[in-house]
């Protein structure tokens, strides 16, 4: 990646890139994963320099989804018919795992970034201290997670869907999965209705 591209990215994240160049850069971002990583790095640097807290990375969400699928025991199989050929479908165990976790994985993977430590701007990031007066939000527990999901579903059902509600739901599903994976390590798996799952 040459200096011209780096300067373009820098201008882009600062909102100073002319429209036609921004258009071109976005198209390249759609094709180029390395470029997206680099933009993410610059965004992270910007956040750090502004003193914003960076959340701990979400490690390999997709793999956790897959691991959960591998490890979960199941009690029953049901048949569904749909657009795809009839398949043997198993209910996922756990409180809130849903298909949306996979889409969350799409949006969540970039949260853990391989920031280039040789970049001076990144080196400066280490010197940014967290404001001690900052109130650390509490983690999303299972009850709160259910509230977020119910909020999104109910708003949609009542015709009150907001512009960004889909992403909220997806993000929550990711959290649900993480919690479920942790539960799996420490306690017997349970179904959504609270009944134990037979191994």
């Amino acid at each position: 990646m040459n200096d011209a591209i780096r300067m373009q990215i820098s201008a882009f994240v600062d909102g100073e890139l002319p429209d036609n160049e921004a258009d071109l850069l976005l198209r390249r971002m759609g094709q180029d994963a390395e470029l997206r990583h680099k933009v993410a790095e610059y965004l992270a640097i910007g956040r750090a320099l502004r003193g914003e807290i960076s959340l701990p990375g979400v490690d390999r969400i997709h793999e956790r989804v897959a691991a959960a699928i591998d490890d979960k025991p199941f009690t029953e199989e049901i048949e569904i018919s749909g657009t795809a050929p009839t398949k043997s479908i198993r209910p996922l165990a756990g409180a809130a795992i849903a298909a949306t976790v996979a889409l969350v994985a799409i949006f969540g993977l970039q949260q853990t970034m391989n920031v280039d430590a040789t970049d001076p701007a990144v080196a400066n990031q280490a010197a940014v201290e967290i404001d001690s007066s900052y109130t650390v939000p509490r983690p999303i527990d299972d009850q709160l997670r259910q509230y977020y999901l119910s909020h999104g579903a109910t708003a949609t059902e009542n015709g009150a869907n907001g512009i960004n509600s889909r992403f909220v739901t997806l993000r929550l599903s990711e959290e649900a999965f993480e919690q479920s994976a942790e539960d799996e390590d420490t306690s017997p798996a349970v179904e959504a209705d609270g009944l134990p799952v037979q191994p």
Partner: protein
Amino acid sequence: MSFLHRQTLSEFVLVCSSLLMVSAALADYDEPREWLNRMGAAVQSTSYEGTVIRIRGSEAEALKVVHQVVDGVIREKVVSQEGNGLEIIRNGSEVHCILPDRKSVLVEEWDDQSTLFSTLPSSEIRFGNEYDVSIVREDRVAGRQTKLLAIRPHDSYRYGYRIWLDTATGFPLQTELIGDDGSAIEQVMFAEISLNKDIHASALAPSYSTENYQWFNQSARHVTRSVDTDWVCEDMPRGFKVIATHEEKMPGSEAFVTHILYSDGLANVSVFIAQMGEGSSQGPSSVSGSNSFSAVVGDHHVTAVGEVPAITVEQIATSMRAR
């Protein structure tokens, strides 16, 4: 008046009427709220194919999307560009989420109209007087001419939006969620897009044969029942009104929780009221652009959740009272 003069006058009146009608139509399109109506219709009816970039905080992600609407039925394919090969295949309300490297498919029901763009609230409840909606300028996004709409809240109890709408179709090519400092909290934009082109069935088919994959379905939805409630918010930010009230059983629990949904016509806040139990946590939390705040009110645990700033959910949660 001669016949010729009468005919000329009639033609003149006809031409004037036509011009007035055209002017009225153009005037409608200059109305920002009419553009929002067009957007709502376009999101539900437009077929498209393109690449979406989402930028939030320090994340920058890309998705390939094919979206087809035929007779109101949505078919869609979303493919992650982040290397894991995840695919979402939607046919109507049935969604198959394919994880190729694990040879697994998750099945889910979605009942809304779009994967990537929610529609706006229905016109019956859309917008009170808490926002200004204006067309800021013309712009270009993904090589197409757009109108930039700004939705500005009058106070810091709600977020603002910037939406770039395709001039020809009203389709949103870029959206930004704006915080009270004017900065973008989240941006979703098309890097490239083809609108209303013929989409071949093969473009919507899975890229993988799922013949030997394991298939899984999601857990059941919550149980709900409509109720009246004695709970009110004594210090509700201006403009929020009750949209729905019901009781709801959360998965894994037998106890009903009262759920009140408020809307200011654009932003929504849910309030959940439960009996105090062990482990009922308190304080703020956030997910993406949504915030929540939990507080103890008497012997109840009250939580407000919504796509609004933290100050809004805190004020609502702490001012809920049973009459």
